[in-house]
């Protein structure tokens, strides 16, 4: 413990730190002083009043063969033998007139056991009352005196005081009188010193169960387990029947009764863990006295446990209480919270009670030998248990509010996400629109624009007829293509090819060219969910170019379009072939040839280059083969169309 206190100043600059400690410690110590004073006054007030009118104080005591007059309360020497106990003889006066309510003999406090006889007849033997055999539980005794025993006038009362060391024997004032006068005092003492400890013990046992369950469910918090064990020990002490000499059989009960040092060490351990510190390894030393009492007591048997308890146990309890007070004081300085203040005050109260008991045992103060530390300790444990339960409930509340916060946060995050998603969607839509516009512009520029310009140029030069018509038709065709490609065809290229077939057939009819349409598989080409309008436009323009070449330059009579699906093991892909029976053209060098057919070849070459680049842009492969017997354009579609323009990027 001292190292905990010592550690604090070394970690920070000493001056302000010290001042802070002082500013926190001094008020706390003053508070504890106040509590000490209040406790002492409280203990004074607690002293139960006895019916002094019926007190019998003058006895003659025979001890060790010596008879002398004594005044109660009286201490006898400590002894370990039950033979020849101190024997007190006294006398009281009985008048028949008072006999209406019956008479009793009342002993408020004695240790360890008494046997009371009236006129030679035993009326009370406290050894049969388990509670009365506990030296720490100030049990009173009362016994009715049978009316037949009482004689008018003087009667003799004798008390045998059985003492089992190491404590000294003690006999408080004896009261004999009408039962009605005795009972209230007896009941008060019973309530305070018998019933209340039982109530506390019951409470303690319930808390022990609750704490044990908490610890079982939360293994990483041993603090609950430590306190549960301490409480179980306390409960065992409260309910184990104390062995009564001369019986020396129940050794286990004897050592369990002497388990207070272990219990107090556990409480110190609890304190250290509770305030969030690590239990030092040499802290185990604190358990040594308890273990010694336990082991030696178990081997040796009574009265060894009692002796060891007095010699070793009680100082250990005191030491533990002191350590606990230091721990709580440190905690108060460091944490300044309600829990440390509360526990600190409780510890101070217990410490005061312990000191008071010590003074009583050592006969420095006389308070009729009423031990209060056990009672105050139980009260402290109950307070700690209640505090823990309170902390647990507060933790649950925190969890609740945390869950509530979490729900709110998640909702907020969700809303932010929604908003950002909407923004993102809006942005994506805008981007898509812009892309679409760009594409449309490019498509119109590629086809329609050029054709319209060419129409203007032809008209300006005064051209008549065919060339303007062709250019205009081409422009219209391209416009239809652009419009057509905007339609959502759901990835089915066949739908676009169907329209193309229709247009091409109409286009070829005046040229008297037949279009053979062969679809090899029912599906045609595979579905392409990723198919975009600009892919469609590129493909259709490639096919248009192929047909235009066949019509214009190859003088074909028959054009065949074959649509097929192949699968080379890596998934299906479509192939569209355009074959004509025309005269073909030289493929060598797309550059314009130098002979007279330069213009025609140049145009063809440009067309072919266009086809290649269009195929590349949508990830398709274009194959051209041409000879005198015809031309074949083979367009192999990709398995997946690219998302972005591969050539334009």
């Amino acid at each position, binding site marked *: 413990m001292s190292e905990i206190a010592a550690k604090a100043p070394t970690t920070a600059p000493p001056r302000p730190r010290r001042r802070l400690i002082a500013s926190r410690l001094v008020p706390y110590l003053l508070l504890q002083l106040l509590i000490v004073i209040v406790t002492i006054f409280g203990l004074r007030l607690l002293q139960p009043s006895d019916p002094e009118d019926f007190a019998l104080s003058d006895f003659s005591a025979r001890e060790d063969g010596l008879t002398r007059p004594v005044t109660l309360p009286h201490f006898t020497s400590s002894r370990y033998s039950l033979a020849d106990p101190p024997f007190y003889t006294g006398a009281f006066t009985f008048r028949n007139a008072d006999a209406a309510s019956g008479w009793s003999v009342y002993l408020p406090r004695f240790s360890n056991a008494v046997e009371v006889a009236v006129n030679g007849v035993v009326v009370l033997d406290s050894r049969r009352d388990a509670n009365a055999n506990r030296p720490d539980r100030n049990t009173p005794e009362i016994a009715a005196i049978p009316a037949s025993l009482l004689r008018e006038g003087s009667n003799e009362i004798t008390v045998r005081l059985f003492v089992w060391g190491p404590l000294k024997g003690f006999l408080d004032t004896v009261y004999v009188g009408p039962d009605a006068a005795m009972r209230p005092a007896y009941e008060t003492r019973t309530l305070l010193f018998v019933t209340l400890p039982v109530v506390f013990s019951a409470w303690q046992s319930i808390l022990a169960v609750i704490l044990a369950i908490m610890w079982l469910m939360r293994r990483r918090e041993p603090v609950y387990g430590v306190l549960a064990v301490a409480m179980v020990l306390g409960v065992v002490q409260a309910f184990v029947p104390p062995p009564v000499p001369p019986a020396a059989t129940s050794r286990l009960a004897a050592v369990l009764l002497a388990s207070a040092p272990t219990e107090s060490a556990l409480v110190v351990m609890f304190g250290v863990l509770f305030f969030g510190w690590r239990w030092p390894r040499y802290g185990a030393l604190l358990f040594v006295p308890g273990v010694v009492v336990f082991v030696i007591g178990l081997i040796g048997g009574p009265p060894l446990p009692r002796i060891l308890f007095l010699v070793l146990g009680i100082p250990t309890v005191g030491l533990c209480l002191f350590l606990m007070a230091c721990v709580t004081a440190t905690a108060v300085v460091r944490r300044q919270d309600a829990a440390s203040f509360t526990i600190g005050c409780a510890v101070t109260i217990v410490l005061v009670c312990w000191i008071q008991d010590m003074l009583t045992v050592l006969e420095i103060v006389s308070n009729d030998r009423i031990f209060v530390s056990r009672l105050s300790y139980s009260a402290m444990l109950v307070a700690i248990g209640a505090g823990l339960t309170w902390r647990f409930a507060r933790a649950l509340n925190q969890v609740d509010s945390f869950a509530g916060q979490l729900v709110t946060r998640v909702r907020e995050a969700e809303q932010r996400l929604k908003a950002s998603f909407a923004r993102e969607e809006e942005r994506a839509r805008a981007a898509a629109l812009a892309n679409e516009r760009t594409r449309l512009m490019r498509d119109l520029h590629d086809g329609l624009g050029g054709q319209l310009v060419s129409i203007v140029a032809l008209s300006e030069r005064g051209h008549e007829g065919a060339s303007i018509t062709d250019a205009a038709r081409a422009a219209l065709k391209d416009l239809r293509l652009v419009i057509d490609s905007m339609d959502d065809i759901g990835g089915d290229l066949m739908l676009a090819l169907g329209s193309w077939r229709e247009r091409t057939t109409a286009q070829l*009819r005046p040229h008297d060219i037949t279009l053979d349409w062969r679809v090899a598989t029912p599906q045609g080409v595979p579905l392409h969910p990723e198919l975009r309008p600009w892919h469609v436009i590129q493909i259709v323009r490639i096919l248009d170019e192929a047909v235009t070449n066949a019509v214009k330059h190859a003088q074909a009579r028959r054009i065949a379009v074959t649509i097929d699906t192949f699968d080379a093991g890596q998934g299906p892909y479509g192939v569209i072939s355009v074959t004509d029976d025309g005269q073909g053209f030289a493929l060598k060098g797309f550059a314009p040839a130098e002979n007279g057919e330069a213009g025609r070849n140049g145009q063809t070459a440009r067309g072919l280059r266009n086809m290649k680049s269009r195929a590349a842009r949508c990830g398709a492969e274009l194959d051209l083969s041409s000879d005198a017997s015809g031309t074949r354009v083979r367009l192999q579609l990709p398995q997946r169309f690219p998302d972005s323009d591969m050539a334009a990027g």
Partner: protein
Amino acid sequence: MTEQGETGEPITILLVEDDAPTCWRLQDALVKAGYEVRSAGTLAEAQQALTGGAPRVLLTDLRLPDGHGIELIREMRQRFPDTEIMVISALGDEESVISAITVGATGYLLKDAFPTDIATTVRDLVAGHSPISASIARFIVRRTQGAAPNSAEPPPGPVLNTAKLTPREIDILWGIAKGFSYAEIASHLGLSKQTVPGHIKNIYRKLEVHTRSEAVFEAVQQGLIKL
């Protein structure tokens, strides 16, 4: 050569087109093919021309200076149910064509079609063959597919109720949309080639919204109007 109907009378065509060169072009092609053509440049002229009796065929542009061709088609359909109606369109876009179909037109004629194709199309129409293009067929079948029952917003484009179409008719439309010829469709579906045009005629009839109340009913059915 004069194209004649079953009674031997020459086949009369009412051509409604506001653009004069286009009108001449179409008229030339049709007259050359032997049809008797009356032309009108506006809706009023067309309606006036109808006082002289019903033509066998009505070819009309949709955008007219004094009104919309749709009105003319609807009126025609009600007054002269036997007249074949076709839309003249520059682009053959589904927006105009489908809306014309729903009021009773059967197909469209491209304004730049070759003269022979113009004549052929009209001849087929009179013979009871309603032509249908791949793009129109595509539009219709896409509509049969994409009609999500509880979709909040109606699909873009003109209103079209495809609920009455039979699976066979939808199959035929698929075939047309994918560019198959009637013969190919017939052999795929196990039909006789001659029955395909009849199916197409039926498709047109089923897509037609006959009356105003029926139009309202259709709209309610499709969730376009909430009562």
